[in-house]
């Protein structure tokens, strides 16, 4: 399993009610259901992923996240709303983050950190849009249209009265280190946050 998903599993209380936005092939929801007695749903848009989720016995709802969640979910209907590596591909990440915290008691968000030194150097010295392990697509075909840095995200949280309950910044093998902890926005490739309304 992707290591960020392993980390997230440990952040979730057993027996809780979980919504996974952009649940992909259902790997995380499947593991949470099997290992942590979690109940909940995955939201996904891709046809093939829908089939994979059904095969894994994951409750999957086929929707376009850019359409918002208001038609489907009432306020505070989940303990956790998770969004892994999806935020940066949304039309309006700001709206979706607010939706997450309307629907869930807590939100868990992971995204690729655009402030990582490789991105910075490729753009400053190479003069081209960065292509890295965490961001493997080229500018013209990338689904990642709203990239942000660790600093951007935390500024957004401050501006919108969102509380950061937990943060973990790691490299692409999802290891943290003393240096990453010292300079997360420069050395971290993937950022993981647990957030709630402030």
């Amino acid at each position, binding site marked *: 399993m992707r290591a960020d998903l392993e980390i997230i599993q440990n952040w979730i209380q057993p027996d809780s009610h979980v919504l996974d936005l952009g649940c992909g092939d259902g790997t995380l929801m499947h593991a949470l259901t099997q290992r942590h007695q979690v109940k909940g749903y995955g939201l996904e848009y891709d046809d093939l992923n829908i089939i994979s989720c059904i095969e894994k016995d994951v409750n999957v709802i086929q*929707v376009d996240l850019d359409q918002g969640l208001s038609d489907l*979910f009432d306020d505070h*209907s989940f303990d956790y709303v998770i969004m892994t590596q999806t935020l940066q591909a949304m039309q309006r990440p700001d709206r979706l983050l607010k939706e997450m915290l309307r629907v869930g008691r807590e939100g868990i968000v992971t995204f690729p950190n655009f402030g990582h030194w490789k991105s910075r150097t490729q753009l400053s010295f190479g003069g081209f849009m960065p292509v890295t392990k965490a961001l493997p697509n080229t500018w013209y075909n990338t689904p990642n249209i709203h990239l942000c840095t660790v600093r951007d995200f935390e500024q957004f949280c401050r501006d919108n009265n969102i509380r950061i309950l937990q943060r973990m910044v790691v490299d692409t093998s999802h290891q943290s280190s003393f240096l990453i902890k010292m300079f997360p926005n420069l050395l971290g490739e993937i950022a993981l946050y647990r957030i709630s309304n402030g």
Partner: protein
Amino acid sequence: MPETLPENSVGLVTAQKQHFEEPLALTCGRTLENYDLVYETYGELNADQSNAILICHALSGDHHAAGYHSMDDRKPGWWESCIGPGKPFDTNHFFVVALNNLGGCSGSTGPNTLNPASGQLWGSDFPIVTVEDWIQSQARLADSLGIQQWAAVVGGSLGGMQVMQWSIDFPERIRHALVIASAPKLSAQNIAFNEVARQAILSDPEFFDGHFYQHDTVPHRGLKLARMLGHITYLSDEAMRGKFGRELREGKINFGFDVEFQIESYLRYQGQSFVNRFDANTYLLMTKTLDYYDPAAKFDNELARAFTHGDTEFLVCSFTSDWRFAPERSQEIVHALLDARRKVTYAEIEANQGHDAFLMPIPQYMNVLNAYMARVKKEIS
């Protein structure tokens, strides 16, 4: 007419009839003293009766869901695409039951059968039955077949409403509910279409207040118009454009009111062939059954409360170009199920065929049904 029957068909099938002596109290306040239900079955019921699937038909459907009645049949049953060996409702593993609902016109007790009280055909004296009445009668059919609990109950459109009602009225008797291209209740627009269809029939001079049988005629103009209107709403604009466009039958316009465009020819043909196989009173009755359906009404209009009992798991499917039962309507069902914290999967299938899509073997749709039914299969074997 098929020379040989396709290998993935259930093949030749024969309808059966079950008579019920126990009176059935109907929602409208009247009682059916006794009645018949006509049904077909495909596949074998297993020893512990755990592999049964009930198929609920839509407005113009009946018990002939799959296979052929004879080698002379031009067409197989109405859901041949989904029922048969190796198909989503796989008759190698499941015992599939399809019936003609009360008020229907294909052999079950309805307007075109004998009213024992009068010695005449029921006609418009037949009571208007509701989805709830149907579920009661279907439950008795299940009893008579020795089926305590359905592995799955499945239906599209009006059939989907029956599936929902099963999960509400008999949650302990249904493990999986497959609700396809349906809605939790009709919209005003939907009722409006039904009303135009009814007016077409009711205003036909040969309707004779629903007792046209005694006059040895049928309100063919009204029924044909009703079906033509229905057909327009079952197709999408895109599908109609793709299939017919503005194509002319004779290649030129004739400045008259005979058939000129291909779409006119198609609608007239569909309307006419419907008159030959369907009963006008049944059409009136079933459109009312549709209009009346509103399971949330008993729960202060909170649909989620209707779904709070039992452990039934749900698959809800909709089709992107279906404007008669649009995806938004299926999402209302999903929303209620989510509120009730039920196990539910929702697939919105990309399709340009409109409401009719639910009858077609669209690859993603078949994949969804196959994947879901594989889950159901695992539970029985």
